[in-house]
């Protein structure tokens, strides 16, 4: 639903979102990257399982939560992308795994 106005060019890094390799600009915000994906959402809510996407972009609303490198409920709007970062959309209530 959003697009970037410039091409990151050689500074691009690769982020895996639900296993899919996606190109991002080094140092950019993870929530911004998620908003450029065709899916347009990053989690489903914990009560009605409805899709949610970043809303405030400043760390207040907690809508942009996703699992990042194995850590759950990370505020992606406060997260900077890294090359090789693994991001998973979070479905409903978190499932814990050992």
């Amino acid at each position, binding site marked *: 639903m959003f697009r970037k106005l410039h091409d990151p060019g050689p500074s691009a890094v690769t982020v895996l979102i639900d296993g899919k390799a996606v190109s991002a600009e080094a140092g950019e915000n993870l929530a911004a990257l998620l908003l450029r994906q065709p899916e347009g959402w990053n989690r489903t809510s914990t009560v009605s399982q409805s899709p949610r996407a970043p809303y405030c972009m400043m760390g207040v609303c907690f809508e942009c939560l996703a699992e990042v490198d194995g850590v759950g409920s990370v505020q992606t709007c406060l997260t900077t992308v890294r090359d090789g970062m693994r991001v998973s959309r979070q479905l409903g*209530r978190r499932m814990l795994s050992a």
Partner: protein
Amino acid sequence: MTPVSAQGFDVAVIGGGLHGLTAALSLARAGRSVVILERNWIGRHASSATAAGVRTLGRDLAEVPISLEAMEMWHHIASIVGDDCGFHAHGQFKVAEFDSHMPALQEREVTMRKLGYGHEEMIDAAELRRLIPSLSPHCVGALIARNDGAADPHRTIAAFRGACERAGVTIVEGCGVGAVERQGDDWLLGCGVRSFRAPAVVNAAGAWAGRVAALFGESIELGVRASMMMATERLAPFLAPVVSVVGRALSFKQSDQGTLVIGGGLQGAADIDRQRSTVNFVELAKGARASSDLFPIVQGVRIARCWTGIEAQTRDHIPVIGASPQTPGLFHSFGYSGHGFQLVPVLGEIMRDLVVDQKTTRSIAAFAPARLMQGRHAA
């Protein structure tokens, strides 16, 4: 100042926590006109801050008979208050992490059996793992009570309140009793400009019950607790029973909503005058440590909120239940010291016995107020 007209009732209950509500409910059902005088609002302090464990496991021996009776009531609580209060009987577990913790649990089981109680049962490591697969494999066994469980504190408050209202109890919130005066056979209770009159008064004022007793000229030694609690984000269901552990302050469960509710008696700071209590995170870190030691999968779980609840604690950690030996018409029900939630339903019956029949067949001798009273009238 004596107000022109005081509203009259058969019984006035001071304190609108769960113990005040249950007493009021049983008394109203026995045909008494009852008023609850609550300084803030119904369930303001310990009743809504509680983890709402419904536990017979590991009770003080003096509490076991009434706790077992309360347990039977919890299993049909909807027939008493019209809602199941979110109660589920998935058991309570006291876990031993090390072999050295086992003898104490085994000894307890033997003691209970000798006294004729069969509700506490030892299980070994294999059974423990079968019942709680998410528990850390280092745990070696547990003492469990299979019929125990936990409820939802807010639903419980709402249910008892609703039942009281249907039974005709008058609930007055924002009404703190500040003055007490004897008028004939009645007590006149002053709450600011309002006043209430009743021959019988139930003191269910929790952490402030000592102050209420003092209004009647009684001196009861009473301490305060500010037990800290944590609730996490919602998680997919992975744990049904309530888990505690030998040698550490921990009570760990997952609520119906999926949040982990973690308590166990770690203490914050209570300011009883300002009715405020505060969390001490360095102390609370012990609870987080115990949680992640027992359930390593929860290390990355986020804490959504922490709180403390102010409640009364007695010297011997068992409650004060009974008619005052000094003051006619005054009945005490407080001092539950961090484990009063489970006793709520049976305490209604006990307070009705005491107020209506002036006696009870239930075993409450150990809770006699006199044991903590000072002054010339002390028994």
